[in-house]
């Protein structure tokens, strides 16, 4: 009952022009960038992050969350129509989705992807809402050692699941941590590692890192690849409704994908991607068992289960990723790291206290997410042809628009042109990292997590009277560290589990290397 009252209060708080416009803008931008191959939610959220500073915190976060969820809706479009995945999380969708297009069922595939996304997001936001209070209560008992464990879990666990080698991920992590230590030291108020540059006393700005590593670097990759023209199949409104059979066969995969996605979304790593693979292989296995049933299209020839399941999974994973970000204050993915950055700049520190200290914001956010989900369904079903039209926007115009927004965003942070220079430097670094196969997400995560990690190290040492072994006397912290070790070894399990995993179809975009 408590939840219901809070939720209604949340709806009451955000039913005004500001937040609703923010949701709508976020949903539209998200659907657009999701549809564009090679652009994921990370770069879009990074580029628009500075704009949220002028908004009230709830609207700002809702706009970013709208982009995040919207991109997870929209990323199936290019996969299904062109066999070119919109981002890494929709690589799997291309397999059955494009096969459906070849069968002339493109409309139904798009509709089922949208409905699947809707069902899964509803499950995920519901789960977020229900777990929020108990999770916060549990996390309130955490102190230094536990947060140290979770921060290491986020960074090392990511290394276990990211595509790169452990060494490379750790190098990217070290770089992100190093960047974050520049500027004022939180505990002593002393400026450090500024190399005599006054500009660096305030530290390296999160938007500069996020927009540089993702936005600018992404533009350089887009430019380098050059423009490819493709034949876009036309999708008319009357092609959209799935047949009764298709609907019947995709209902259960949507729910299964939703639950699977949420659970995987709560753990670190490129979970949206992992979740789609897990859902695909689950549905494929189940389908083989039922292959003699009538009216089922086998996998490989455009099975609806292979579209509905993974598309549900990547949306639910986005919802799941909100749990550690909001309730522990430790983001596990690049988009949620940017989301958290927006909150911090507004002076709101996500963590176990969020739900009590910022109850209006939290419940407004939950209510806003429900609205965003519905808005996205409405946008993506009848207006799908509008979003597919963005696939026709010339690349060069798109590049210019992204660059102009990125430069203005960096400049407006502090009205400083040095931030624009820093942005370029981070862009070149991000480009080089992609070329070296160093995961940019790990750097961004480390940059955001660094202050939490440093504080946790201090607290642990103080609590233990200078003895690091104190950490091992805390059962929860030890448990988290054991899980971290297991996740770090996950590639071994993964190789055994996904030995038959589908090969990525089409030209995987740059982000396929690291998820998100």
């Amino acid at each position, binding site marked *: 009952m408590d939840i219901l009252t809070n939720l209604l209060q949340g709806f009451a708080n955000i039913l005004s022009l500001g937040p609703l416009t923010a949701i709508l803008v976020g949903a539209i931008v998200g659907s657009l960038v999701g549809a564009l191959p090679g652009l994921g939610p990370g770069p879009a959220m990074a580029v628009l992050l500075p704009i949220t500073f002028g908004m009230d915190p709830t609207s700002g976060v809702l706009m970013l969350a709208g982009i995040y969820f919207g991109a997870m809706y929209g990323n199936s479009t290019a996969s299904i129509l062109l066999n070119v995945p919109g981002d890494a999380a929709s690589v799997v969708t291309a397999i059955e989705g494009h096969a459906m297009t070849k069968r002339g069922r493109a409309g139904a595939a798009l509709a089922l992807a949208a409905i699947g996304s809707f069902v899964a997001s509803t499950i995920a936001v519901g789960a977020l809402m229900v777990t929020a209070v108990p999770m916060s209560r549990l996390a309130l008992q955490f102190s230094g050692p536990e947060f140290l464990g979770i921060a290491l879990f986020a960074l090392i666990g990511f290394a276990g699941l990211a595509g790169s080698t452990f060494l490379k991920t*750790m190098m990217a992590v070290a770089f992100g941590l190093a960047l974050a230590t520049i500027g004022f030291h939180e505990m002593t108020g002393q400026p450090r590692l500024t190399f005599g540059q006054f500009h660096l006393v305030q530290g390296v700005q999160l938007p500069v890192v996020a927009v540089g590593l993702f936005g600018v670097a992404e533009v350089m990759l887009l430019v380098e690849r050059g423009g490819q023209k493709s034949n876009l199949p036309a999708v008319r409104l009357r092609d959209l409704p799935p047949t009764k059979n298709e609907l019947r066969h995709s209902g259960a995969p949507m729910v299964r994908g939703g639950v699977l996605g949420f659970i995987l979304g709560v753990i670190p790593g490129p979970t949206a991607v992992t979740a789609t693979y897990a859902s695909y292989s689950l549905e494929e296995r189940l389908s083989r068992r039922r292959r003699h049933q009538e009216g089922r299209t086998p996998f490989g020839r455009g099975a609806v289960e292979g579209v509905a399941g993974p598309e549900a999974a990547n949306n639910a994973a986005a919802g799941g990723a909100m749990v550690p970000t909001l309730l522990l204050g430790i983001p596990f993915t690049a988009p949620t790291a940017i989301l958290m950055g927006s909150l911090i700049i507004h002076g709101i520190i996500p963590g176990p206290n969020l739900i009590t200290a910022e109850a209006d914001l939290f419940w407004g956010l939950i209510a806003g997410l429900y609205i965003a989900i519905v808005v996205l369904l409405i946008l993506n079903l009848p207006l799908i042809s509008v979003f597919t039209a963005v696939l026709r926007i010339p690349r060069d115009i798109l590049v210019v628009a992204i660059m102009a927004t990125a430069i203005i965003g960096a400049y407006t942070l502090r009205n400083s042109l040095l931030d624009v220079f820093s942005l370029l430097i981070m862009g070149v670094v991000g480009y*080089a990292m992609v070329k070296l196969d160093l995961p940019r997400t790990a750097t961004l995560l480390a940059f955001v997590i660094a202050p939490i990690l440093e504080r946790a190290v201090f607290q642990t040492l103080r609590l233990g009277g*200078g003895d690091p072994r104190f950490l091992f006397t805390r059962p929860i912290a030890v448990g988290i560290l054991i899980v971290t070790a297991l996740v770090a070894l996950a590639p071994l399990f993964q190789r055994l589990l996904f030995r038959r995993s589908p090969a990525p179809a089409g030209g995987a975009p740059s982000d396929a290397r690291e998820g998100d």
Partner: protein
Amino acid sequence: MLIAYLVVLCVATVYLIATLQLPWGSLQHPGPGFFPSLVGALFLGTALTAIVQRLRGRRPHRREGLSQPPDPRRILAVVVPMIAYPALVDVLGHIVMAGLLGMSVRILGARTWLQSLLVAVGCGLGTYLLFEVLLGVRLPRGLL
């Protein structure tokens, strides 16, 4: 690719040396240099390991490196306006510099001069109208 890791090594070394100038404190009362020096050690350690691996002739990671050599003109078409913007905007103002950015479609999209000019005007005036007039952001003005 070895060169790239040598650059990383240099950055990590400079960083670690800088962190060692800061007060380290004690385990009980860690100073501002405590955490950064650990980070610096990790940074340097990973860079050294990567270089040693490379020198031992271990095969590069399969996805690493350039699949097809990028056209340097296309990269420069993006990078040059980005350097020019902060360097010259104090003199020429936002509209001109954003216009220069728009001109990059001449190379990126192989457009005609007229088309590029239209994109440039659109980019300069469009961003001005959107951010300065509509959103109330103060863009750099320049002397003009």
